[in-house]
């Protein structure tokens, strides 16, 4: 097994890369935790409107510590702020927005992604207490569903697989994966490699991936800023 610990992208770099693909004016939902970092790396001059499923559209950044109003939180129960253009609505209206296909992009984390776009991110299937939240709604209905993730698990097992072994969050829903090693699209039931970090050959990357990587459309260098705060 190749040791990727020194060459892989940081979560901040993955989030930065995902942020570059979001179009100006897009309505975007970011999953709890790691995906939330994408908000920090919006290119200047682009305005992105963030949705949180608990009923806020167009919210602002986290308030200073001590300035929180706990009636104004995001789906991760973290304090957020309002800003000009914010709107509030109830939960049924919020998910009508999601289910009706009005969100341009949803970016989530993943346990496994299959080459047909199936996503598993809510339960490892090993017991424990199940908890789906809003992920099943988001992945089935956002216009574009992307994943930000480490390329392999902490134990070195591939997260990009032929078919998911863990319980599914949604079927055939993921179209792009921003991993710690590559940018990969899901097209026609296959993983199509778009970008990879320079330190890794395609063969090395294939060895770390649980399903075939097609490279028919050319592979670009995956280049992120070194220092991201």
């Amino acid at each position, binding site marked *: 097994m190749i040791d990727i610990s020194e060459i892989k992208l940081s979560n901040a770099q993955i989030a930065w890369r995902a942020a570059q693909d979001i*179009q100006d*004016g*897009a*309505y975007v939902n970011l999953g709890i935790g790691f995906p939330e970092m994408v908000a920090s790396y919006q290119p200047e001059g682009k305005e992105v*409107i963030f*949705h949180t499923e608990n009923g806020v*559209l*167009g919210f602002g950044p986290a308030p200073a510590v001590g300035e929180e109003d706990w009636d104004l939180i995001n789906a991760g129960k973290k304090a957020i702020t*309002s*800003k*000009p*253009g*914010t*709107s*509030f*609505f109830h939960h049924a209206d919020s*998910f*009508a*927005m*999601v*289910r*009706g*296909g*009005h*969100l*341009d992009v949803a970016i989530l984390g993943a346990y496994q992604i299959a080459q047909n776009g199936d996503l598993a991110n809510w339960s490892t299937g090993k017991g424990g207490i199940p908890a789906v939240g809003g992920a099943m709604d988001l992945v089935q*209905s956002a216009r574009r569903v992307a994943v930000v993730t480490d390329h392999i698990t902490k134990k070195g097992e591939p997260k990009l697989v032929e078919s998911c072994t863990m319980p599914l969050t949604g079927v055939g829903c993921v179209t792009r994966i921003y991993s710690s090693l590559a940018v990969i699209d899901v097209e026609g039931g296959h993983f199509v490699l778009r970008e990879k970090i320079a330190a890794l050959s395609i063969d090395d990357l294939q060895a770390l991936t649980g399903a075939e990587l097609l490279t028919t459309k050319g592979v670009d260098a995956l280049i992120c800023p070194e220092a991201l705060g």
Partner: protein
Amino acid sequence: MSEMTRYPISQEDLDMVKTVTTLREVIQQIPDGATVMIGGFGGSGAPIELIHALIDHGAKHLTVVNNNAGNGHVGLAALIEQGQVDKLICSFPRSADPSVFVTAYKANKIALEIVPQGTLAERIRAGGAGIPAFYTPTAFGTAVAEGKPIEVFEGRSYIRELWLKADYALIKGDLSDTHGNMTYRMAARNFNPIMATAAKVTIAQVSRVVQAGAIDPEHVVTPGIFINHLVEITHPAQEEELNRAEAVYP
């Protein structure tokens, strides 16, 4: 990507009535054969300027979704009178002066699909909310239920109805900020907020476009995510008043 054309975007423009040219530019994207939802209940909330721009544009073979079938010779009635509407989906094709619709209907020039008002509203809401079908007790046992699946839940019979979606929605609001966050005026709200959610492209006319932040986030009725194009019409015509003045368009 929800693209939104924002008219106007500068502070100086805020008190300016947009020209008919601008209105035409927005409306001319509507092709022949489109399905168009038009807000309003009777004249209340009817986007008269958008409808008249659609008449000027001349798109034909339209399927129109509205609660009614027009009144007098302005607005929806005028659109029908121009022969632009092949089919109307509505709950109540009656009004003080329904003569335009009645004439077209009796001459077999317009098809009519009657939908109970609550079912019409819920089908539109379902279209915007990604719900392809739902069950309702409304119209069970009536002619409206003919041919529709029936199912019993908790001992009561319900009929299944399908969502309703459109290519375009033409709606009328009161205020909008530059993000498209909108409010409405009293009972002129009616079908406008739900139609805004159920169309691929929603074109809204509002009495005033204000800066983001000028509308309290608690008071937004339609979040901007549903609005694609915004046209400012500072003194919109009121269908009822046009009809009392016996106006005819064009």
